[in-house]
């Protein structure tokens, strides 16, 4: 089974882009290694409870970008040499999530030091035996 992908209705990105970028990150991080098989469009759509056309669009774009490759009759796999995630997109995403976390910390009245220490602790928690899934992304909290 592939590492967990999650869809967030409060994410400003359309679902197909969430899938596309999450797969890209899983591949870039090595959670989905070269040659690994990914779920079929049908299976992933059922798992995420989304329209298969949405998954199909994400897979098509990932295939066009050389991240995934389709072997006729066998299924879809991570390419043997997937291209790295583009820096600007990666940095943009990192920045976006950092801003969410920072504003949450400010709202809660945390100090800069406290916020950084908490991030650091969360990081350690992930790298020591954490499941290492994309679901560790910070979630914005509702006011």
């Amino acid at each position: 089974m592939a590492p967990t992908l999650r869809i967030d209705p409060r994410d400003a990105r359309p679902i197909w882009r969430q899938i596309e970028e999450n797969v890209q990150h899983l591949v870039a991080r090595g959670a989905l290694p070269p040659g690994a098989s990914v779920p079929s469009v049908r299976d992933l759509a059922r798992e995420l409870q989304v329209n298969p056309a949405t998954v199909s669009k994400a897979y098509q774009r990932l295939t066009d970008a050389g991240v995934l490759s389709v072997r006729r009759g066998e299924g879809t796999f991570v390419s043997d040499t997937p291209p790295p995630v583009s820096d600007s997109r990666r940095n943009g995403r990192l920045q976006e999530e950092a801003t969410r976390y920072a504003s949450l910390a400010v709202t809660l009245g945390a100090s800069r030091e406290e916020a950084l220490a908490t991030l650091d602790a969360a990081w350690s928690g992930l790298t020591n035996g954490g499941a290492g899934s994309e679901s560790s992304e910070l979630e914005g909290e509702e006011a």
Partner: protein
Amino acid sequence: MNPIVLEGLTVRYGDRLALDNVSFAVPEGSVYALLGRNGAGKSSLIRCLLGEQRPASGRALLLDRNVWTERALALEEVGVVSEEPDAPPAMTARQLSRFCSRLYRTWDAAGLEARLRRFGVSATTPFGKLSKGQKGQVSLALALASSPRLLVLDDPTLGLDAVARKAVFEELIGELADRGITVFITTHDLAGVERIADRVGVLRAGRLVLDEEMETLKTRFRRVSFPRSQAAGAARLEALAPVAVAARGWEVEAVVSNYDEESFSASRLGGEDGEDPEVSVLTLEEIFIALTGEVQEVKA
């Protein structure tokens, strides 16, 4: 060809206008979700769509046929799950399957039984002894057994718990993946349909107030929250031309329907005296409430 086309559909009950000149089309292979509060006109629209009600004016086309004048032909390749699934109470799902199989050119009895197993509904229990949710599931399994090109689902998850709802959506997703059917669905399960529908229509007091792709809908709606205490808040609120405004605790929340990142960041909504307001994404349910809920007057 658009499997469903509604042209100026109008329905009157005495003096009351239940549907007021409603027109829209459902593109082939799409999942179209029709939303509306109770009494908004969904049931009248479905009745017209299934040829059960004659519109005062306008017409409904199913698979290119006028459903009022050619009902049998128009519905030949349409699977229907109605809000109140009905069948002879003594008949089991298996008997219903055998009965219905004679009415269609193709009938997948094995697939139907497999679906019932996935739903956890017995094929040998009389229909009258099933719960409302189970009746809906039997009805969906029957509707899919004829391999329809178009599915019309009137609140198919009503009365189902979370697990059973998921099972219903999984069957729909499987059909979409395998056969590329077109789905027209009304539902109160906005969180579930948000992930599946690619087009949304909203009825309000008989009028279609929205007919749009889910993706653009999600892109243009945002919630903007200001602290209540912020001076000049009222003027700023007005400038946003919000579709809904509500007071929540010490914040004023405005829902805007014309959001675009550039103009919103360029105008620096926060002004000079305070922080920028918080801008957040709305779920389909929140957009629906903003469009159809009661209007609240708020002093900023």
